[in-house]
């Protein structure tokens, strides 16, 4: 086996083998026992490493959950102390102690604002009532999404997950990892100090970006103005002063501790993402395994389920590529979407083009929600084909079925945009608004709040013959650009979606 062949085999194990080389490696494995032995050894270790680190990840998640429980316990305990203090304060006996506590509360050093769907943990430095804002010593871990920090002296920062940071003062931040954009909005904030694990950056009136991986060299990109940066530990090194449009990465092999790298202005988030945070399955993206890939902040997975040897074809869509269901019952399952369930408000939007009906049997376009509890929490959108067009109907759990008026009719062979907007919830009921081609239908309804889906409840595109679900026949339609929104879009947003645009501004 040549060196090149060895490299191809290890690349195959690493998942970085170009598809053009797959045939060659297959042949190599067939004819060369040494290559097969190498592949088996490497692949086995690869799997063991995945297992080891996967187990580690789970135990860390368990630790995080434990930390959250401890945090919640501390918060409740603090609340109890506050309530007790109020009662006793009436006697005047402990009022002095209460005032003393208030006097000791440190000044807030920053305010935080998160984008929709962000997941974070705030670990308090001391027991406070939770209303006092961020104080020195507090730690924020951002697991998903983006946070905007505003420091009272005039520094604004926008930081993307995964990130971890400690608040050290009114004009300073310690960030151990994350990708962030920093700008000084007022001159009195000059001198803002950002401490990274191995560098210290002092802002002298400017905007700059930081890329700080959890393990690895941090990068400093100067967008405008002036900063000075210096390595924190090791040998005495002089400061580096990048010029606007320059970027440096920590490098132990240079005299300054930095080496120059290409500047990347586009990498840094300047604002919190738009409120219309969503998961999209546009059928244009295909992952390394040849499966459709979802985009968005959740690790949603798309599974193709083939029934009766049917086919889910790719077809030219309303926006790029779409999927086509051939009446066999094959369908797509979107896993891992349940965190995006519409509670208390949200929306589902997609494009559909119906094929000419062969019978009047109803079939499902999309269904979502909980499959447990005897279908109580399942939503299904279906069409009943008729000669003049198809009638839309919705089933919203609790055996309730809503047939929409004849006005809500879909023509064959024409792309229609459908949107179902849920929320808000009041008195145990949810408002559902239905839009066809951007126009709200008169059939909007108020329905009981349904139980949310479990983690393994799939969102199904097409018809799924599950006896627990609403019985309908196999789908004959094309579907494109399905999106799940966590926040309810308004009429204007729906109109933008129905015109093929993107209200999130993502293009």
């Amino acid at each position, binding site marked *: 086996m040549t060196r090149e062949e060895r*490299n191809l085999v290890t690349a195959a194990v690493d998942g970085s083998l170009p598809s053009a080389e797959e045939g060659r490696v297959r042949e190599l494995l067939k004819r060369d026992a040494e290559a097969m032995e190498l592949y*088996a050894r490497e692949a086995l*270790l690869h799997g*063991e*490493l995945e297992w080891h680190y996967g187990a580690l990840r789970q135990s860390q998640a368990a630790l995080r959950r434990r930390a959250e429980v401890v945090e919640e316990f501390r918060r409740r305990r603090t609340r109890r102390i506050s309530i007790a203090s109020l009662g006793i304060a009436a006697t005047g006996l402990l009022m002095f102690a209460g005032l003393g506590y208030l006097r000791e509360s440190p000044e807030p050093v920053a305010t935080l604002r998160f984008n929709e769907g962000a997941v974070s943990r705030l670990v308090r430095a001391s027991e406070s009532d939770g209303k006092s804002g961020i104080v020195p010593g507090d730690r924020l871990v951002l697991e998903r999404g983006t946070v905007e920090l505003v420091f009272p002296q005039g520094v604004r920062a926008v930081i993307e997950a995964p990130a971890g940071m400690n608040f050290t003062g009114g004009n300073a931040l310690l960030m151990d990892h994350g990708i962030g954009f920093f700008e000084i909005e007022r001159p009195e904030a000059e001198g803002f100090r950002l401490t990274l694990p191995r560098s210290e950056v002092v802002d002298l009136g400017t905007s700059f970006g930081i890329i700080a991986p959890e393990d*690895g060299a941090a990068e400093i990109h100067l967008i405008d103005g002036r900063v000075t940066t210096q390595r924190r530990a090791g040998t005495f090194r002089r400061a580096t002063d990048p010029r606007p449009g320059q970027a440096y990465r920590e490098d132990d092999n240079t005299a300054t501790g930095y080496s120059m790298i290409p500047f990347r202005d586009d990498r840094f988030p300047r604002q919190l993402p738009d409120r219309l945070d969503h998961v999209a399955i546009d059928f244009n993206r295909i992952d*390394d395994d040849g499966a459709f890939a979802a985009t968005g902040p959740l690790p949603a997975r798309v599974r193709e389920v*083939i029934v009766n040897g049917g086919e889910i074809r790719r077809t030219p869509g309303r926006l790029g590529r779409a999927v086509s269901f051939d009446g066999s019952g094959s369908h797509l399952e979107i896993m891992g979407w349940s965190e995006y369930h519409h509670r208390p408000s949200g929306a589902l939007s997609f494009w559909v083009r119906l094929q000419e009906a062969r019978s009047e049997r109803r079939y499902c376009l999309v269904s979502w929600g909980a499959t447990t509890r005897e279908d109580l929490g399942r939503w299904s959108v279906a069409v009943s084909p008729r000669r003049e067009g198809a009638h839309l109907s919705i089933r919203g759990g609790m055996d309730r079925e809503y047939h929409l008026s004849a006005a809500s009719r879909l023509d064959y062979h024409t792309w229609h945009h459908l949107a179902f907007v849920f929320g808000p919830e009041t008195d145990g009921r949810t408002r559902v608004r239905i839009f066809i081609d951007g126009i709200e239908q008169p059939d909007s309804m108020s329905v009981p709040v349904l139980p949310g889906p479990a983690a393994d409840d799939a969102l199904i595109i097409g018809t799924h013959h599950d006896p627990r679900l609403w019985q309908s026949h196999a789908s004959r339609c094309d579907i494109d650009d399905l999106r799940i929104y966590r926040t309810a879009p308004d009429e204007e947003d729906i109109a933008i979606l129905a015109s093929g645009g993107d209200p999130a501004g993502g293009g």
Partner: protein
Amino acid sequence: MSRIPSETAEYIALISKHQAAIYAFVRAMVPSAEDAEDIVQETNIALWTSANRFRPGSNFYAYATRIAYHKVVDHSRRRKRHHPLIVDTELAEKLAASLGEAAGGTPDRRLAALEHCVEKLDTGERGLLAQRYQRNLTVRRIARDSGRSESALQNVFSKIRHKLRLCIESTLARTAPT
């Protein structure tokens, strides 16, 4: 409360001890970790329902991976998703045999040895493994983030795995039950 018979308890312990080894075997034959997890679950169910067919004292790893192999074949056929390299039965059979040899005589002890050997790597190597396997970053992404070429990084990973393999073998030899 009823007690679990001792042979059943031993069988459960065998399934539990071999989880990492079964996963690694399956993972080598399917395109994604998600597929591998699904197949391991199916294998566990099959191991449980066919418990009476296993002869105590015989090679459990060989027995379990034979079941896992059939699950891989079923799964790939059902889902029409194959490993890009393992597309026919001949190759799949060959790989299954090679994986059995690579796992050696004590596949259930390899994970403990691996954990020990990961700890012995230097900080940079551990950091790279954590990025690749804990954060699930691709080699390409790590290369891009660290400003290295993909092929250079691939070599680094290959060297780390080589180091780990030597360490695992020596650890297993040193700690072999007498």
